[in-house]
């Protein structure tokens, strides 16, 4: 499988967006059109007159990628052009926050598109501000830990469940730590007729605060703690789960790898907060029988 | 130019009546224009619609302030609406009512005429739809338009039996008003 994301892009060393985009394109192949909303991925890959995309690609605005994808799909259909896959790829902010309405509309209308959310759990392009994807107690620049705050006071929005509720035929979670799993799921999503959704957990070296070499390691730890369950939902039913089994790790190990959770290990009451995060992981493990 | 104002209640088809009048007038070889005084009124609220008829193309876009003719689809409107407002002295005001015109004391020098359009509609159409019936009455009372053109416009809009019955009712109202002239 050829990488259709050219080198020379301006992503940070160890960039999650580049990895997620590369995996997606590996699954999609050349006969696709990609839409990307505003975000790191768009900025780092397309500083005029250069582009890292070896497939047709369009950027429009922050909140409308799903609508643009809808129009591309409709346009291709009207012009009788068959076979070309339409893929939208957006960050957590563009997907879960500002772009949610357009996404909901596109999924409700049933366009034959695949949406890939590259979830690095904050607005990284603008400097690590809190988004609806930011997890409980993560410190960001707009939800900083402080004397009276443990950081973001709310858990992550359950985006895959929202898409499942739209009646999508295929929803899957993926992780950068499991590229072959991700490529297989994207491929499956693209092949299935109708609006399909991939939610990729994508650690960001800059925003989360870990060494550039650890992107995959951190991603793997999220899965092994149960904080990021990997599963597939087909026609509303969970059909496949990646078991953790004996590899199960306490959330503490995941949290201590990252600067954004550092305060939990230094602040009074931090242990209680870590226990709450452990409870989130345990609930996932129970819910998906991980 | 002749200007017509139609008073009705939301849901009574005042706007449709104005449109059909414009279609019929055009079929008669005139130029025409129909438009609603569109508001946020819902069913039952007083509404107005307008039609202009002219020998040359109509360019004027203002509302109608001094109508030549007024059609009132529902006599209860008289309690809340000044239906005779601006009506020209030599104009005609047609009210859907089974009372005689003399019963209506309105502040106008125009001729008042009545027609029991509701009864005609019930008898012939089988439903109290008076908008098309009153167009027949208008044709009979004013001679501004041929009843055949109205019937044709109505048949075009409501094909089949509904249109036929409407046309019959239009003719009936036309004849009744012709007799009163």
């Amino acid at each position, binding site marked *: 499988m050829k990488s259709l994301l050219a080198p020379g892009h301006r992503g940070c060393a160890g960039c999650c967006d580049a990895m997620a985009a590369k995996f997606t394109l590996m699954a999609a192949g050349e006969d696709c059109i990609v839409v990307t909303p505003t975000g790191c991925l768009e900025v780092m890959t397309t500083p005029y007159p250069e582009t890292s995309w070896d497939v047709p690609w369009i950027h429009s605005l922050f909140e409308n990628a799903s609508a643009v994808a809808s129009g591309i799909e409709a346009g291709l259909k009207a*012009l009788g052009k068959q076979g070309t896959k339409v893929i939208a790829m957006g960050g957590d902010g563009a997907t879960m926050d500002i772009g949610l309405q357009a996404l909901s509309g596109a999924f409700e209308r049933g366009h034959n598109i695949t949406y890939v959310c590259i979830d690095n759990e904050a607005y990284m392009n603008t400097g690590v501000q809190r988004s609806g994807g930011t997890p409980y107690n993560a410190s960001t620049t707009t939800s900083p830990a402080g004397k009276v705050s443990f950081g973001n006071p709310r858990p992550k929005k359950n985006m895959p469940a929202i898409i499942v509720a739209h009646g999508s035929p295929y929803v899957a979670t993926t992780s950068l730590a499991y590229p072959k799993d991700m490529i297989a799921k994207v491929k499956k999503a693209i092949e299935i007729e109708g609006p399909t959704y991939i939610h990729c957990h994508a650690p960001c070296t800059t925003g989360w605060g870990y060494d550039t070499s650890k992107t995959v390691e951190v991603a793997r730890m999220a899965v092994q703690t149960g904080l990021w369950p990997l599963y597939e939902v087909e026609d509303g039913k969970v059909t496949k789960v990646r078991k953790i089994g004996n590899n199960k790790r306490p959330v503490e190990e995941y949290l201590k790898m990252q600067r954004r959770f550092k305060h939990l290990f230094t602040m009074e009451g931090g242990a209680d907060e870590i226990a709450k995060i452990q409870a989130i992981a345990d609930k996932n493990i129970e819910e998906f029988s991980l | 130019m002749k200007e017509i104002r139609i008073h009705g209640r939301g849901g009574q088809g005042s706007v449709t009546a104005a449109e059909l009048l414009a279609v019929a007038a055009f079929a008669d070889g005139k130029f025409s224009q129909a438009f609603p005084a569109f508001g946020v009124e819902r069913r039952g609220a007083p509404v107005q619609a307008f039609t202009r008829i002219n020998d040359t193309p109509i360019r004027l876009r203002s509302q109608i302030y001094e109508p030549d003719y007024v059609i009132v689809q529902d006599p209860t409107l008289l309690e809340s609406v000044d239906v005779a407002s601006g009506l020209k002295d030599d104009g005609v005001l047609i009210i859907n009512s089974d009372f005689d015109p003399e019963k209506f004391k309105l502040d106008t020098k125009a001729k008042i005429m009545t027609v029991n359009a509701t009864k005609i509609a019930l008898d012939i159409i089988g439903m109290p739809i008076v908008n098309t019936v009153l167009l027949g009455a208008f044709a009979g009372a004013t001679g501004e338009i041929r009843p055949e053109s109205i019937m044709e416009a109505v048949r075009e809009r409501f094909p089949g039996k509904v249109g036929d019955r409407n046309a019959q009712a239009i003719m009936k109202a036309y004849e009744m008003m012709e007799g009163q002239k």
Partner: protein
Amino acid sequence: MAHEMKMNKKNMVVVEGSYAVAHAVKTCRPNVISAYPITPQTHIVEDLSKFMADGEIPNCEYINVESEFSALSALVGSSAVGARSYSATTSQGLELMHEVLFNVAGMRLPIVMTVTNRAVSAPINIWNDQQDSISQRDTGWIQLYAENIQEVSDMTAQAFKISEDRDIMMPSMTCMDGFILSHVYEPLILLEQDITDEFLPPFKPERTLDPKNPLTFGAFADPHFYTEFRYQQECAMQKALKKIESVADEFYDMYGRYFGGLIDEYHTEDADIIIMAMGSIIGTIKDVIDRLREKNVKVGLLKVRAFRPFPAEAIMKVIRDAKVVVVLDKNISLGMNAGALFIETKSILYNTDITVPVIGYMIGQGGRDIPMSTIERIIAEAEEVIISGIKKESQFTDLKEELI
């Protein structure tokens, strides 16, 4: 400019303005229509939906979106793959599209959109004025304003032709006054399919999103490039000035109908007083002029058909020898106490040898009716200006002082 209309009454039908537009859109053979319902645009999209339901628009997809924002966004995608794309909106819907309007123009996508002009909230108001489209004047859309339903119907085909010209590639708004034109029934000749097929060839853009030639659309331009992209847009707008004229002429040659190019004139040759306005008020003004000409008042009308690009030269040529120019605006630039057409007209005259006094009236806000008497009063005030100069440069019309 002298075009004698060859309109055959036999070919006319009495239909609603919205139907005329929907029919014109259908006749232009669009590939993607995407719209969100909003008063008073609804009849257009309902009629188009009916055409779709009856299979009357071949090779076309209609996207029932969840907002105006997505309506125009979807067309970004469809236009970029080479599909002829159309939308319609008004007022709040147009304002919601604001960000996408810039985007469409910047990406040089020749989308055509009908705007059924309506006032903007607050206070909420569904009736006609032109604040909505005027507020979008800097977004890079060509803006054409129609006088009657024949014109807006014909303008639809013209707009596609202007926008899709490879030298231009800028989107167009065809503006029609809400209710006054969108809901009026009057006779017109519906856009003819056979002539339109010849007048408006299929949309074949130079560049599309195509896996066979994988281009990147809408890259981000840093300060090193951004200025040049903006400059290119302005150049395209300037080219559109000529194109709007030539397309109107070509349309006249093929269809026999003409409502002006960038502008149109009515009794301006010898006029001391020239009224400038846009949209449906034009017809009322013409009737007033006929009345006053009988009384030997030398008054004429300059109809502004294209507001963007702004037809500076065409306007200057017409008003050069007038004694006073009166500009009527169905909008206001708050804080300037003036309407946009007035402001633009004044601005093009500075640094020239034209010294005609210009006065402005903000008129018809939020659907306030404009009777002939109002126009007559304004003309009487203009006559005063000729005699004793400008007393009030720009003002609201028919203000109800008792309410303030």
